[in-house]
């Protein structure tokens, strides 16, 4: 195991602000604090070369876990080991082997071309000239950076900036990538580009990737395995497909009717998802799919019928709905 996390706990205190004039006067005098359990008894292991998706609603503890893994946070209790190192000791030898990319924060120098940041990182990571040139060449090719390198960062679009952020973060050829919302705010094409790049990087250097994302498409495209966290607890760790089957024991049946099925109660066959003229979508229990579709074919004026897996985005959405409360995003994750 390259990454081992055992019974990790991370608690911290937050300042409670009371509303209103009286409230702010009161907290002027005395502030109240409350314990928040960001991560509560988390155990998992990750092998070299895996791409693992961290899923969970806002405030579930994803970012906190990533920060513990990258040594930014001391665990309250439990043990964490990455590449044999204890992250929070932040030894140089460890820091040189991973990278942290945060979609909402940037490290590029604002007023200068991205290549200047690359040179700074070259000096910081003590990358040899030959290695630097080779890596920069490869990254330039993979990310199509050529036209961006000489432009000032502030003149780049959000997506172009993210590409450069990734390049800056990968110049030292890290073995482990912690990607926190790397595609946030990007348009669909750019999201796809970034996704392909991460897959390519993983394949080429057998790098381990841990990814959090609000976009399920990222997770579906990249991660075979997912770890689902809610309120600091691990709810699921395993194959993404199996998760879909376990939490969404449904199939999606699309029916094109030859004529209007008036007079038939469609909800008798399954949950009606959408009715659009003669096209109807139904959710049907997975284990009864063949029986029900057979029934429909015989009883209804069906022109065409297809059976599909429901979109995984929707499935995951259901997990969190079932898991209960979505907590306030801002107060917990920073």
């Amino acid at each position, binding site marked *: 195991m390259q990454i081992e996390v055992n019974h990790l706990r991370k608690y911290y205190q937050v300042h409670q602000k009371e509303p209103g*004039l009286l409230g702010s*006067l009161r907290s*002027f005098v005395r502030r109240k604090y409350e314990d928040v359990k960001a991560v509560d008894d988390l155990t998992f292991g990750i092998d070299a070369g895996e791409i693992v998706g961290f899923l969970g609603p806002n405030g579930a503890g994803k970012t906190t876990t990533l920060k513990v893994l990258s040594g930014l946070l001391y665990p309250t209790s439990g043990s964490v080991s990455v590449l044999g190192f204890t992250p929070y000791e932040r030894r140089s030898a460890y820091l040189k082997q991973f990278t942290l990319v945060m979609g909402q924060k940037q490290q590029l120098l604002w007023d200068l071309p991205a290549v200047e940041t690359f040179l700074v990182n070259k000096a910081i990571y003590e990358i040899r000239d030959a290695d630097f040139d080779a890596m920069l060449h490869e990254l330039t090719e993979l990310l199509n950076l050529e036209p961006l390198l000489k432009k000032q960062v502030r003149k780049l679009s959000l997506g172009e900036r993210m590409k450069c952020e990734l390049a800056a973060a990968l110049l030292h050829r890290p073995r482990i990538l912690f990607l926190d919302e790397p595609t946030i705010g990007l348009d669909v094409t750019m999201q796809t580009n970034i996704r392909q790049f991460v897959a390519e990087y993983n394949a080429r250097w057998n790098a381990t990737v841990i990814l959090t994302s609000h976009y399920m498409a990222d997770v579906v495209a990249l991660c075979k395995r997912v770890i689902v966290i809610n309120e600091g607890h691990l709810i699921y760790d395993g194959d993404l497909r199996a998760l879909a089957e376990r939490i969404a024991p449904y199939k999606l049946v699309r029916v094109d009717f030859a004529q209007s099925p008036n007079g038939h109660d469609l909800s008798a066959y399954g949950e009606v998802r959408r009715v659009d003229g003669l096209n109807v979508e139904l959710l049907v229990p997975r284990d009864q799919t063949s029986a029900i579709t057979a029934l429909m074919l015989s009883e209804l004026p069906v022109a065409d019928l297809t059976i599909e897996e429901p979109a995984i985005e929707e499935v995951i959405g259901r997990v969190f709905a079932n898991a209960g409360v979505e907590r306030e995003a801002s107060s917990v994750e920073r």
Partner: protein
Amino acid sequence: MLKKYLALLRASWQGTLEYRASILIYMLLASMPLVSLAVWLSLAADAPIGNYSSADFISYYLALIFARHMTGAWVSHELDYLIRQGLLSPLLLKPINPIHSQIAAHISDKLFRLPLVLTPIAIAALLIPGVHFDLSPLTILLFLLSLALTFAIIFVSTYCVGLLNFWITHAEAVSELWFGLRLLLGGTLAPIDLLPAPIPQLSVYLPFRYTLSFPVEIIIGRVSGGELALGFAVQLVWLAIFIALYRLLWVRGLRAYSAVGA
């Protein structure tokens, strides 16, 4: 309008409390004239300087520190920030001129400071021998009036400097210049009558005296009669000039601002 102001004040007051730590620091900052006082005290140790004894210097600077706290404005920084970050646009959509929320913020800041400044100054005035202020009701009234006018001049003029951000990228330098000249010629570095001739004579008509020194001169009882009346007249004229300037800059500035489509 009054209702709007009450709402603005309420909001500002909460903001003031939220940043209480910063305000305490700004309070220490505004007490910087203590350095000048210390120097004058060392010079006046043996014999009075001009017509200021040690006790006179202390009275002068205590009043000055109080006046400075009650009249300070930081609105040019605020405008610099709002204009550069493009945060002004949403404010322009509201049916109230943004200057009013700034005024409210300054008023609530003054209210917060008043007891914190007045207490130590009052204690110092009682404990240090020889310190005296002219505390007749009429003088206090005139002092408060000129203090209000002083604040108005500082506020409007700094607002004007802030509005320069519509056109130039270095309005902060202008603000620094205006601040530096006020320190030098407005009574902070030295009481104006200790400055070399012909500055004291010119000061009666220049704006600097009316951005700090004038109310201080009133409360320590150094200005009266015709000089007093002239002082108020000139102070009002300067306030009118700055208000006119504000109107001009605001109207033109908005035009420039919307022209670039920021």
